[in-house]
């Protein structure tokens, strides 16, 4: 009888990524409704020291495999290790983050565990003892409620949507043998090329300031960058700006770019096409600055200013600087 709400924690270079705490807190909430335990799977090398930390977010048991073959992440090693443990322990629910790694791993696990999964969920709850997951589809133009009839019921959670709620448990830390055969590991990470040092990735940013077609050219992004510096934001761009060659592909927010969910998204000179909204629609607060009063983005914005962004943005930078001084 499948029992237990489990997560696969994500760590990089020996520190948890924020999504791990969001996963743990969500699992805790679901487990409390079911009267079950929260288990976490932690994989890596030299990570024994961080296992206990998950107790701060409500985890009862941390299953840890500490093995050189698990660092850095490869699909083969991590999927084999998690699947092996899950088949043995039979949790009823398995949650992962819809991060780059989480999406790669969770999809492979669906295959290994012959089950069903709801990807990139914005809400999960228990209804009649089963996991009901809410997720955007068609670039967020509609939503689906997904139920899985098999175990474990899998879901990947969109980062920055679920709260990380502090708890205080001392978890039981249980070591397990991932059962890895080096001959079975068919991929190898040859090189890690880090992006510009010190910049928070868009998908992890709390605040994003984005520029679109209204920026009129690459040289004008300096005003966006100045606002971003003062407000503590990462700079994003719309597809129009990326296709015009003004900003790199990795800065693109939208349906064919990155999906972001910051606390604050400031859209400058972005009309708000549905494909852009698909990438930032779950932001907690949306600000739109655009001189076109009919720009669709105003329908989605919490705060809007219909005015010339070249006048507004530098003033906003001044005002925020004053406020934060």
């Amino acid at each position, binding site marked *: 009888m499948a029992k237990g709400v489990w997560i696969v924690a994500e760590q990089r270079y020996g520190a948890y990524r924020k999504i791990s705490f969001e996963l743990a807190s969500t699992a805790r909430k679901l487990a409390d409704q079911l009267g079950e335990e929260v288990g976490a799977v932690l994989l890596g090398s030299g990570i024994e020291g961080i296992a206990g930390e998950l107790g701060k977010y409500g985890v009862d048991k941390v299953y840890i495999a500490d093995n050189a073959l698990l660092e850095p992440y490869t699909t083969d090693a991590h999927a084999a290790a998690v699947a092996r443990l899950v088949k043995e322990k039979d949790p009823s629910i398995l949650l992962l983050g819809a991060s*780059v790694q989480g999406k790669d791993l969770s999809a492979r696990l669906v295959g290994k565990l012959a089950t069903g999964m709801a990807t990139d969920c914005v809400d999960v709850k228990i209804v009649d003892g089963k996991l009901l997951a809410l997720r*955007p589809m*068609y670039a967020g133009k509609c939503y689906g409620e997904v139920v899985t009839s098999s175990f474990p019921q899998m879901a990947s959670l969109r980062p920055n949507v679920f709260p990380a709620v502090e708890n205080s448990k001392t978890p039981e830390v249980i070591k397990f043998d991932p059962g890895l055969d080096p001959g079975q590991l068919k991929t190898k990470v040859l090189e890690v090329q880090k992006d510009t040092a010190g910049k928070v990735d868009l998908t992890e940013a709390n605040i994003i300031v984005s520029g679109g077609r209204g920026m009129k050219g690459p040289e004008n992004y300096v005003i966006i960058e100045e606002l971003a510096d003062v407000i503590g934001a990462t700079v994003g761009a719309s597809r129009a700006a990326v296709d015009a060659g003004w900003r790199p592909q990795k800065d693109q927010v939208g349906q064919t770019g990155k999906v972001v969910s910051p606390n*604050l998204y400031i859209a400058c000179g972005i009309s708000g096409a549905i494909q852009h909204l698909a990438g930032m629609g779950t932001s907690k607060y*949306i600000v739109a600055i655009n001189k076109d009063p009919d720009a669709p983005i105003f329908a989605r914005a919490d*705060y809007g200013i219909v005015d010339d962004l070249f006048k507004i943005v530098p003033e906003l930078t001044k*005002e925020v600087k004053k406020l934060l001084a």
Partner: protein
Amino acid sequence: MNIVACVKQVPDTETLIKVKPDGSGIDEVGIKWVMNPYDEFGVEEALKLKEKFGGDVTIVSLGPARALETIRTALAMGADKGIHISDPAFDGADAYTVANALATAIKSIPHDIIFCGQRAIDDDSGQVGAIVAEFLNIPQVTLVTKVDIEGASIKVIRPIEGAQLLIESSLPCLVTAQKGLNEPRYASLPGIMKAKKKPVDVKDAAALSISIDVKAKIAKTLPPPARPPGKIICGEDPAEKARELARLLREEAKVI
């Protein structure tokens, strides 16, 4: 080289999506159907490999009768043949079921490399590629922006949060394509004419000998959650508007 590219027919991204009142799905009337944009990158990369190494490109697609048009588009771009898996029994199929069908079809042909889009822009699920790789017991590299084949191995670039990874994999391997991998070619008129004569093998569930057991179901389709209306900030001049916005972000939204 034996190259496979999986494609899915999806609604065009400009489509106005209407949810049926009973929540059973979306209204398909008037939809313009296209090849999933991410699959286009996969087809293009398959064709580039064929141009470099020789061999052939097989397009595999699961979908209703209208999906044949998308297979023809890939053939018009330059692929050699297609396998169209079509059966009403696949209606409402989940990722595991779709992947099972695709993998079964692919198992029947030689395959050195398989391309899939990183996700389909209708369900935005992104699972099928990985599950196909699992069924075929081959490695996967997902969200790839560059492919280089060197002998019996493949090297790819894969962006992650804050970095790009250079990953090497053995072949055969499954690659899911991300935007930036290439610029998909348009089908030429001669290509479109030639495509009409290229072979497309149609298979139903019985022909694949697979049982259909859908585990993940969309219990209900809903319109997007309503956002409360926002406020337009007025003021005498840009400085005043900016000041008011900063104040609201600090005192009301509490995000700065």
